């Protein structure tokens, strides 16, 4: 489990020793109510279209995932072998909740969802992803996205 108190001692030590950036700033963007938001998903699960480039060691770039991607076209090439993949193998929504978001749009819980969503490969130091992330922000804003849900794996 992702509760460190339920993990084996060696695994707990390993996870706590991973590099983790800290920030002195606390940026905060306000916005309208949830029912008026346009939302994009970003995952660090190393997902991509089946015919897109797989992620390799040290990859700091991203892949584009269309909102209407068929489930069988979404695959995972994250380099780590230390997390569960069986959930994703049975239901992509346990990692990347495209269907749940679509239901939230239909139920008017959120305003809309982006036509495009994005994936990084989380074994890379996130500081290396800064340039690509800032580029992505400009692209999403041009598509009138105002809010982003980030999902680790």
């Amino acid at each position: 489990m992702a509760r460190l108190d339920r993990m084996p001692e060696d695994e707990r030590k390993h996870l706590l020793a991973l590099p983790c950036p800290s920030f002195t700033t606390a940026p905060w963007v306000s916005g309208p109510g949830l029912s008026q938001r346009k939302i994009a998903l970003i995952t660090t699960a190393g997902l991509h279209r089946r015919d897109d480039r797989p992620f390799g060691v040290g990859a700091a770039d991203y892949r584009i995932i269309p909102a209407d991607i068929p489930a069988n076209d979404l695959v995972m090439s994250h380099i780590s072998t230390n997390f569960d993949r069986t959930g994703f193998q049975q239901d992509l929504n346990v990692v990347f909740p495209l269907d749940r978001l679509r239901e939230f749009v239909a139920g008017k819980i959120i305003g809309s969802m982006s036509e495009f969503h994005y994936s990084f490969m989380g074994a890379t130091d996130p500081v290396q992803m800064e340039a690509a992330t800032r580029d992505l922000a400009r692209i999403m804003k041009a598509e009138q996205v105002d809010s982003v849900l980030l999902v680790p794996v």
Partner: protein
Amino acid sequence: MGALSHYLEEEGLATTQISLIREHTEITRPPRALWVPFELGRPFGIPNNRDFQAKVLLQVLSLLEAEKGPVLLDFPEDAPLSDMQPLPFVCPISFGNAAEDLNATDRMLNAFKDEVSQIRSWYDLSLQKTGRTTAGISGLSLEEIAGFFAAFINGERKSPALERTLATALRMAAEDLKACYFEALAIQTGDTGDSSAMADWFWGKTVAAQIIAALRIACLAIPENDFQLLGKLLLVPRTKLHLFKPAGA
């Protein structure tokens, strides 16, 4: 993940996120985060449970309406428990059926071939029933993976794909092999909630796991960095390494 929130928010986008390791989120202090007590790899808790996933999603999105931050909220529930019964899967294959004049490696490779043949039927059924597979990043079929691994264990050092290094091809083929096995298992048992039972089955009961462990040992004998990385970190999970320690180690 928290770092990406900082970058996006600085660029004018509101963010909210799932936190899987609370201790990391306490350090990065993203604007809005929902810590969930689920295992790594399952940020929305459990597959094929729409209501539970929606509950998590609503809570993490609702943080976008917080008036001030940073805010780090704890999701109050564990993922629902699985009803999974003890696994009745066809594996393992006995090594003892092989001809006596074969050495241990050949017996293992023969058993692997037999096991792959059994898995193939269930994997095909899974594909037919669900219309989906997560295998395929290596570009190799189940049988091609078996042949590739057998050749590598026997000393061949050639990538089956021009566009990939040998080390990358080995890593991707190992992930595809596991995906085929787990998808086959899921269709046979019908309940996929208990990931630890599935992992225990694969790493403890299958010849495929012994093959991956043999690949790992072969990689560690190659001095180049990409093979060392593969052998040390990317083939066998840290929590399963103890299963493959040589006798007396």
